[in-house]
């Protein structure tokens, strides 16, 4: 095993995070196969409504008699799909802009970085809410709004790394032997700048699941009958305090999933940047 992987393997919280993330991915991929009632994504059984946990329904049933355990499992796919799309699009926007601003310099760089600062100066949730609302609420506008507010994080990281790398000796040498700008930037600088981006993306996946859940909760994301965790918690509020299980389990799913991504991200950061190592 490579030394770096051995180091990660010794980091107990990071390994716990990795285990959770792998479990969530597995649940997301296999969803309909492992859920006891895969049809409960949309079906309803009114005779079974609001049954407490037990009796074939480990997490109880909701107001339409749907098995909450199945819906928590089925919700993993949506949560992960939203997070991957948002972080992916944010990277597609943010990374090239960071490379451009870092390598070019001049007014173009200034403009890009000022725009980055401005977007970062507004709390993401507020800006995303404003954007999503202006684009008429739907899951697609929620994802677009989240992407449009998350890219600056990547731009700032890539910018710093590119600035540092483009003044380094090996880039000078590459220029000396006549390598083209595209070649230097994409084949030599990008691979060297990618590790902090991966760290940020890992933490960003967890963070996006959390913010997307808030949007779902506020009715700006997933629409019924989607088995969305945030939406389920919003729907459960009408049936409290009687149906405590209705709100509890989807929330636990969010908590554990986000925790997994955060623990893994922290572990990766320790590997990538020993300077800000978590002291032990």
């Amino acid at each position: 095993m490579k030394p770096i992987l051995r180091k990660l393997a010794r980091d107990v919280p990071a390994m716990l995070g990795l285990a959770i993330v792998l479990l969530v991915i597995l649940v997301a991929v296999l969803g309909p196969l492992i859920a006891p009632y895969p049809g409960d994504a949309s079906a309803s059984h009114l005779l079974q409504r609001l049954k407490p946990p037990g009796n074939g329904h480990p997490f109880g049933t909701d107001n339409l008699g749907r098995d909450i355990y199945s819906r928590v499992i089925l919700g993993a796919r949506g949560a992960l799909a939203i997070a991957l799309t948002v972080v992916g699009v944010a990277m597609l926007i943010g990374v090239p802009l960071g490379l451009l601003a870092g390598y070019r310099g001049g007014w173009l760089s200034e403009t890009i970085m000022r725009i980055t600062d401005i977007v970062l100066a507004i709390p993401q949730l507020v800006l995303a809410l404003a954007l999503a609302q202006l684009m008429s609420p739907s899951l697609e506008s929620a994802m677009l709004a989240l992407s449009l507010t998350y890219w600056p994080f990547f731009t700032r990281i890539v910018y710093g790394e590119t600035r540092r790398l483009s003044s380094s000796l090996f880039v000078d040498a590459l220029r000396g032997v006549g390598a083209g700008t595209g070649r230097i930037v994409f084949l030599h600088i990008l691979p060297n700048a990618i590790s902090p981006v991966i760290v940020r993306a890992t933490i960003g996946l967890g963070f996006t699941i959390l913010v997307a859940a808030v949007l779902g909760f506020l009715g700006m994301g997933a629409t019924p009958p989607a088995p969305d965790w945030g939406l389920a918690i919003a729907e459960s509020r009408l049936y409290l305090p009687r149906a405590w299980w209705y709100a509890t389990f989807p929330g636990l799913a969010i908590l554990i999933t986000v925790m997994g991504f955060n623990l893994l991200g922290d572990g990766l950061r320790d590997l990538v940047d020993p300077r800000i190592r978590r002291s032990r």
Partner: protein
Amino acid sequence: MARFVLRRCALVLPSLLGLLVVTFLLIHAGSADPAAALAGDAATPEQIARLRAQYGFDRPMGEQFLLYLGRVAHFDFGESAFSHRPVALDIFQRLPATLELTFAALLLSIGLGVPLGVVAAVKHNSWVDYLLRLVSVMGIAVAAFWFAIMLQLFFAMDLAWLPLRGDLASTMTRPPRLTGFMLLDALIAGRWDVFVDHLRHLVLPAVTLSLGGLATIVRFTRAGVLDTLQQDFVFYERAMGYRWTRLVWLFVLRNSVTATVTQIGLLFGGLIAGGVVVESIFDWPGIGSYTVQAILTGDRQVMLAVTLLVGTVYAAVNILVDVVHGLLDPRLMERA
């Protein structure tokens, strides 16, 4: 000192201008007829026509932007399509409640977070440390709206220790509004019962809102104190027989909190954003519940005004953080 503060303020100006551009562009985003979109679904043709004239949507973009700047300078954010009152007035009346909640949450996160972080660092790798680390990891990962509902379920519905929602029991008469801060108004009016009841209403929302910040502060204080404990002056003072507790709480702490102060500044944005959700769950009559109402009713002028307000507050807090940094570490001020 004054120069340092002025300089920081000047650095924020481009961001504020950018914020104005962003909100200006948001007006135009995603609709062919911004006047109709701003007015909302229930608007009459006359209202739309009036908005069109007010914003100058028929003029060139540059002129429109100048008009917009002029309106912002006069705190004219239009009329809420929902309450039919000027947005600025609504915000002004609701701001104290939000500030009260935000400061209560901030006070909780700092008041608990810093001491707990110090304890975790001093006793590091003990069970106390592990427990605090686990709690801080969970505090960042938990969905605030879910935590709020869990608190309501347990403390308000099940145990009935604390009120479920609102800011005052409906049976109580409100004290005359002077400052808008209910706690202060109650004291001024000498209404001890209102003060206590309002405080009881404040507990659950403030605890919910403080959670994320608490976790972050514990984490950064712990890391900072652990780093400082390694420094030579700590070994020296210990060797000279200086009292350990005094050393930790006075000198080590002061040298460790710079990173924490930065985090507190960053938290403020999170607190404002978190307040949107927390306020609406607890029916807290502040900016946050106003925002959610605006989202649900499609009240665009309110959304724009709130975005502008939040961005400005955030910028102001960043200046404050820099100044506090300078006070904690005067070397920064000389460098700048």
